[in-house]
């Protein structure tokens, strides 16, 4: 018995001759927060839409809770909450009616949960959906995805359109769900978002997974951002390998280094330093320079 909630094997989706995703494989363990990272058009949405049964694969398999996504999808989806990247709802409905309609698909009473979530997300449930702003529609989407207390939550770019305060609230709710044992898979193109929240991430590029790792491992891999003020240091003084994003303005040098930090310290120590800062680069910076 594995405790994998999601198992994806060699999943391929072609749209005619156009690439969707190619040979994507990864597993998500129970209780994990899993980030799915990649630039726009890399295939994040395609993967998530396959998991919830909106589209069918050209090849490969995917299972959730040990069941085949494409044959037993309706059973699986009882315990799955999904937030699409673009939220569109039946426009003539009031928010509350839509949420009740959504709840009617699950055989349980969700009223308490709806009220609680709406209050926390500051959502006015008497408004009509077509009167809402994009951010507010997104909130409806979030409540709609969580109201039946699913065991797996799949979120496609959940924070786009939310203001920072709401993003913060949203992440708190996600974290709370996770503490209850809920597994979370969400996609994003903002790395700092993922870095804060996720246990593991998969990086997807042009339809293929290029790396899967624990966020802590990724952070540990000793990427350091150096800022040095020194009068007699030049790019040529440093080794070529592992140095990226080198800039020099007047006597200020900045770069990101991957590898053994002692190499750099040794070089620096032979010079007269005015100031030195060593920082953790964000995942974004790592991603930018090492996964292009």
């Amino acid at each position, binding site marked *: 018995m594995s405790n994998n909630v999601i198992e994806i094997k060699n999943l391929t989706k072609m749209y005619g001759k156009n690439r969707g995703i190619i040979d994507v494989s990864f597993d998500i363990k129970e209780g994990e927060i899993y980030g799915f990272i990649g630039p726009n058009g890399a295939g994040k949405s395609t993967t998530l839409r396959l998991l919830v*049964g*909106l589209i069918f694969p050209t090849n490969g398999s995917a299972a959730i809770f040990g069941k085949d996504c494409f044959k037993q*999808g309706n059973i699986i989806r*009882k315990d799955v909450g999904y937030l699409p990247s673009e939220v569109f709802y039946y426009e003539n409905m009031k928010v509350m009616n839509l949420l009740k309609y959504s709840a009617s698909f*699950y055989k349980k009473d969700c009223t308490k949960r709806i009220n609680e979530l709406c209050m926390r997300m500051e959502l006015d449930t008497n408004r009509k959906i077509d009167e809402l702003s994009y951010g507010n529609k997104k909130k409806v989407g979030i409540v709609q995805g969580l109201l039946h207390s699913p065991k797996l939550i799949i979120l496609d770019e959940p924070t786009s359109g939310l203001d920072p305060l709401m993003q913060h609230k949203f992440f708190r709710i996600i974290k709370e769900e996770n503490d209850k044992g809920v597994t979370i898979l969400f996609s994003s193109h903002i790395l700092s978002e993922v870095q804060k929240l996720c246990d593991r991430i998969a990086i997807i590029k042009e339809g293929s997974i290029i790396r899967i790792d624990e966020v802590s491992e990724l952070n540990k891999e000793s990427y350091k951002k150096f800022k040095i003020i020194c009068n007699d240091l030049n790019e040529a003084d440093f080794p070529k390998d592992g140095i990226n994003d080198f800039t020099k303005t007047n006597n200020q040098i900045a770069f990101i280094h991957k590898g053994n930090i002692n190499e750099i310290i040794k070089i620096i120590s032979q010079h007269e330093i005015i100031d030195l800062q060593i920082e953790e680069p964000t995942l974004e910076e790592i991603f930018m320079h090492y996964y292009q």
Partner: protein
Amino acid sequence: MNIYKYETRKKLISTLIWMISLGFFIFSFYSIFETIGSSAMTDMLEEYPEAFLKAFGMNNNFSTIIGYTAMICIYIVLCGAIFSCNLGLNAVSVEERDLTADFLIPKPITRNRILTTKLLAALTHILIFSVMNSIICYTGIEIFKNEQEYSFLTFLLMMLGIFIIQILFFTIGLFVSVISKKMGSPLSFSLGLSFGLFILNSFDTILEGTFIKYFIPYDYFEFGYIIENTAFKTYGVVISIGLIIAFILGSYLLYNKRNIATAM
């Protein structure tokens, strides 16, 4: 059940508007039966070439209330075809056009259930449409028949014929919507199909009994034939039921494999 309830309620107003306007039209048509059905009028119509009368469905005997009803029914069937075809085209494609499929399909239901409930909701509307029409026509006949005798069975067969034609147009619409990648403008398609076949039907009536008739739903339940024989054309019933089953099965098959398009 929830989808059925929602779907039925959503379209109720549109069906109601159809009913009110069509009902008004039918009723006012019946109210001039006495004038049009009079001998002066029929004499005048006899002056017109037969082909012309056939093309406009005026070849039935207007002086009888049932012949008069047949003429009115030509307009009802045309409206019914547009109405039903539109229902079929929109049934599932509207979810994709409004991008609400991303809401509906990730719910714990099968594609089959989505299609079945939508089918039932649409059938309910077609049934409402047909029953209301029949009641309005029946009332019109009873009020304006001028003591004439008529066969109630013939009347019922005509109404049933219209109902089956509507179901057929609905399934055509449904099938077209699941084979096409993206449904752009459903109304123009249903108008085009309904009128196109109607015009084809006029040609066929003038030319009499060409093979084209097998492709025209209106011909399957031609009112003149029903009045004469108090029965349906056998091939009409066979073809229409066969097509309905084929289109429904095809729709289920395709919808279960359908990839839902994204916003982009």
